[in-house]
């Protein structure tokens, strides 16, 4: 039985490390999932949704495209994303998004950076042979919701807990030895 369990575990690990399992951002289960900040907005011949992680720092931004009104989907020749703080303290930065393989429609990805927790203007510019357009939206970058320095305390607790259990067990063992 332990050997069978061990074999299953090795097989699962092999799948994880295979091309299917270890895709760089696909399997980043603990990196945090993106949030949809624009849902099904018409832009030229497309219906677009925009996903990103609206936290301070840099992270991926995805543009999901589908053909509008039952048209045939034509892949855009370029998808660009511009981000600029609403306050105007920085000038707009334009990023070229690259295409990623999907079964239906199109998915484009680029890395964007929100350096401060504030309101940002977002522009998605799409160009294609069947037309193009621009989509604008606003996104509020929030402070990173990490545990912060509390992670140090949290990571130390298991050592204290195990030490406590070990000490309590040692006391109980001594008592049992004395009794027997």
């Amino acid at each position, binding site marked *: 039985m*332990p050997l069978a369990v061990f074999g299953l575990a090795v097989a699962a690990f092999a799948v994880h490390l295979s091309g299917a399992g270890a895709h760089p951002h696909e399997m980043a289960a603990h990196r945090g*999932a993106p949030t949809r900040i624009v849902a099904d907005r018409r832009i030229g011949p497309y219906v677009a949704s925009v996903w990103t992680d609206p936290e301070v720092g840099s992270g991926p931004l995805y543009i999901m495209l589908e053909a509008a009104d039952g048209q045939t989907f034509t892949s855009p020749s370029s998808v660009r994303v511009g981000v600029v703080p609403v306050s105007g303290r920085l000038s707009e930065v334009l990023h070229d998004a690259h295409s990623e393989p999907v079964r239906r429609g199109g998915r484009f990805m680029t890395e964007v950076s929100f350096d401060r927790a504030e309101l940002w203007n977002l522009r998605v510019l799409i160009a294609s042979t069947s037309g193009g357009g621009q989509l604008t939206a606003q996104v509020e970058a929030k402070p990173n919701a990490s545990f912060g320095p509390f992670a140090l305390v949290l990571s130390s607790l*298991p050592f204290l807990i*195990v030490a406590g259990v070990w000490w309590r067990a040692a006391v109980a063992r001594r008592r049992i030895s004395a009794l027997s």
Partner: protein
Amino acid sequence: MTTAQSPVAISSHVDPAGQSFAERLNGPWHERSLQVFMGIVLAHWAEHLAQAYQVYVLHWPLANARGVLGLWFPWLVRSEALHYGYALVMLVGLWILRSGFVGSAHTWWMVAFWIQFWHHIEHALLQGQVIVGQNLFGSPVPMSLAQLVIPRLELHLIYNTIVFIPMVIAMYRHLVPPEAERAQMRCTCAGQPRLAAA
């Protein structure tokens, strides 16, 4: 004292003759196996402690704070091989060492096992989405169900914590068992059987 706790009764429980590997792991070898298992668990927590220290004390950028092993083998962290390998070791360890636990300790141990099992269901969901090429909830990246509630980096730490807590309660109940449970134990973890066997 019950009769089962008498030296003769206990030594017959821990006699390794004719025992299978699994029975030995949960009998005479249970104490040592649990020590090794807890060593692995603590080594994993030590990695997190090192990572938190790198970020919050040494002020390294998050991308460079890869714990200890991640410094020498960055791909371990990038590919999540370290995380998934550890999750597998946990699942296998929790399953293989379960029958050495009795009573309430067994209940708590199995709580930890089922939470860890769910963790693997989540991984299977993620891998399934990659293999099929279709993500849940229209997401551009594969999504796990827990990410709907906790869409943050801390999900990993939370999973480890909620598995660790019932596991350590089980260990406590196992090392310091109530008398009724001690009588059913086949291992040396709570102390007395080793004396009896000697």
